[in-house]
């Protein structure tokens, strides 16, 4: 994370010996709880350890996408445009976490926005688009992610997006548009009415601040390399940021690699591409002294959480390493490529539980 580039930053409170002493005294009054547990009763946004936010505004973008404007709690450290934040909501009483790219531009009121597209059958996205209400409290984590502009801005930029993949790019454009001279945005969506932020993008294009190339896959079909050549002939000269469906990103990565310019390509994935499931196994959580039968099709993280175990997590797609646990012994299988990882007794191999499934018995330290 590049703290120097965060766009909204609350100055950290000066910590002093006196502060620490006062905290110890307060804690002696509230033990076994913490002082903040009582403060939470009245102002949950003040918590220094549990970042929370309050939903302040909901804006419909398309039929199935909406923007959620959130007032972050006191501990919010700001973000770099292009980064995502993790948000936790209670759905049917169960806390669920997902990552969403920050789409808001510069704001004086310190609020941030995410834009969510509802996925059919998607637990969290459907909830955020259909059931969230203004004033509701949500859990948050600090912004994270590497899908950001470099310090020295490139002269020519290509933004390649599909569907909800426009979100981090919108966050970047809203902040940096004035510093960027030559931007091409090649965006695909099924139909014109499915284009999120359509009005704003078309206006930027009208004003000549970006060149917007809008494609509608229902009529134009999926983007392929020939079409890319035709629509953006100078793409090789452009540093590129791409975010969209797995198939599109795969095509792009192959093409950039084949032409020898992968260093000019940055991609952001919303979910891992998975292979055929394998056989599952018993996961034993050593610290909890608890056994759990896990199938081989889904990540250990999902199945552990379903069983009510508090597991560390982050992006839930294998990029942030927020979910790693040491595996003392056993075998797991990477759901993205089928790769098997085996630990001999005492090895303590670190494994990401969000993209690994059990493949036989394994002991995890939790």
């Amino acid at each position, binding site marked *: 994370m590049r703290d120097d580039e965060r766009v909204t930053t609350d100055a950290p409170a000066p910590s002093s010996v006196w502060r620490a002493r006062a905290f110890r*005294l307060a804690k*002696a*009054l*509230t*033990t*076994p*709880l913490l002082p903040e*547990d*009582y403060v939470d*009763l009245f102002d949950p946004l003040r918590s220094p350890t*549990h970042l929370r936010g309050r939903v302040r505004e909901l804006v419909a973008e398309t039929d199935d996408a909406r923007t959620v404007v959130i007032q972050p709690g006191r501990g919010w450290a700001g973000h770099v445009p292009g980064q995502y934040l993790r948000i936790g909501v*209670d759905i*049917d*009483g*169960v*806390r*669920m976490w997902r990552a969403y790219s920050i789409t808001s531009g510069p704001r004086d009121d310190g609020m941030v926005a995410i834009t969510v597209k509802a996925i059919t059958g998607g637990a969290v996205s459907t909830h955020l688009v259909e059931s969230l209400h203004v004033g509701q409290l949500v859990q948050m984590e600090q912004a994270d992610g590497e899908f950001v502009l470099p310090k020295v801005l490139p002269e020519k930029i290509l933004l390649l997006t599909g569907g909800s993949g426009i979100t981090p790019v919108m966050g970047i454009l809203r902040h940096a548009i004035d510093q960027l001279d030559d931007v091409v945005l090649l965006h695909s969506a099924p139909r014109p009415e499915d284009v999120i932020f359509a009005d704003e993008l078309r206006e930027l294009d009208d004003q000549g601040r970006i060149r917007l190339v809008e494609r509608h896959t229902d009529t134009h079909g999926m983007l392929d390399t020939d079409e890319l050549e035709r629509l953006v002939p100078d793409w090789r000269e452009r540093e590129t940021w791409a975010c969209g469906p797995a198939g599109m990103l795969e095509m792009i990565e192959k093409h950039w690699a084949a032409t020898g310019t992968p260093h000019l390509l940055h991609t952001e994935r919303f979910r891992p591409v998975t292979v055929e499931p394998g056989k599952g196994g018993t996961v034993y959580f050593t610290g*909890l002294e608890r056994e759990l039968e896990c199938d081989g099709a889904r990540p250990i993280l999902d199945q552990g*959480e379903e069983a*009510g*175990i*508090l597991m560390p997590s982050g992006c839930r797609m294998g990029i942030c390493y927020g979910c790693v646990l040491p595996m003392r012994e056993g075998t797991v299988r990477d759901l993205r490529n089928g790769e098997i990882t085996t630990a001999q007794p005492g090895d303590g191999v670190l494994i990401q539980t969000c993209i690994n499934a059990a493949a036989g018995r394994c002991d995890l330290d939790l």
Partner: protein
Amino acid sequence: MTALQKKDVNPVAHLTPQDIESLGKELDAVRQSVLDTRGARDAKYIRTMIDVQRKTELASRALLLFSRWKPAFVVGTVGLTVSKILENMEIGHNVMHGQWDWMRDPKIHSTTYEWDNASPASLWKHSHNELHHTFTNVLGRDNDLGYGIMRVDEDQPWVPFYLGQPAWNFINACFFEYGIAAYDLELGKYFKGRKDKARFKADGKKVLNKIGQQMTKDYVMHPALAALTGSWKQTLFANYLANLGRNLWTHSVIMCGHFPEGVETFTKTSIAGESRGDWYLRQMLGSANIKGSKAMHIATGNLSYQIEHHLFPDLPSNRYQEIAPQIEDICRRYGLPYVTGSLPHQVGSAWLKVIRLSLPNHLAKKLKFSRGRKPVQPTALPSRTAPQTAAA
């Protein structure tokens, strides 16, 4: 079930293995029906409970700052007692059981919660969740049964020490939280040389640490704050009364759970090779409920639905009262006792049993204490109502 068969009235003699199996299935179905409907309503229940408890505590402690004035002292003490009871019973006990783990809220989770009690959560969870709930009412395995200092069954040989057990029981009630800490520490086992020394030392440190923090809070920090208004003595006394009140209350509730007349105890050998149905049976026969108002149920942490709690220790406590009629109906159909009674009745019954068992069996018989258990006639036993299908 050899221990049961030795009783004057064997409460399960009429059950065939088929019956026990189908009992297990029926109870599994009750459990599943709760799991299937667990959701936002339940989450709201526990969050509201926590909110009410903490605000009550804050308000009471604020009042106690002015406890030089009698009304503030009285209301503050009552409020603090209530909040301490709620915290230990409906919140702490149930959260540490994992009843709310499904919410995945790290503040309301069995692995993170620490309660307002002398016994550290980690030790309590081991001795309560693993030992007491697994070996419910098994003589020699379940510490809750007489806490190792009392005679709880006619089958236990009498020694003169037991003459004093009504007194031991009362003293234990007054210092109950320390009693809990002591047997979570397995003091008795240690003195008999059956507990690992290093482990005992480590655990002992945890307990002393916890007691230190608890005492500092109640008897140093809050009185010190109240010294500003000249109320330190009253505040100290109020904290003592609140802790005493909670000790007496929790002790009574827990005695009612497994001690009233009519509740069975078991021997170590009787539980070997138990099936799911057998296990359910032991939980039902070894527990007793309390009848009463909604406030009473909440104040007991819904342990007034002890039978339901022991059948399904990890279901959210607010659901026990909802499934209670189904459990009672199952008991009726299978001809099993569903022991319940009002709070005074159950407390009295438990105390009578303590007193009766303090005497050797022949003396107790002379005093003609009644033994509660009457045989219950099954109303619809699977093996009798549908023998063909049951056999098929």
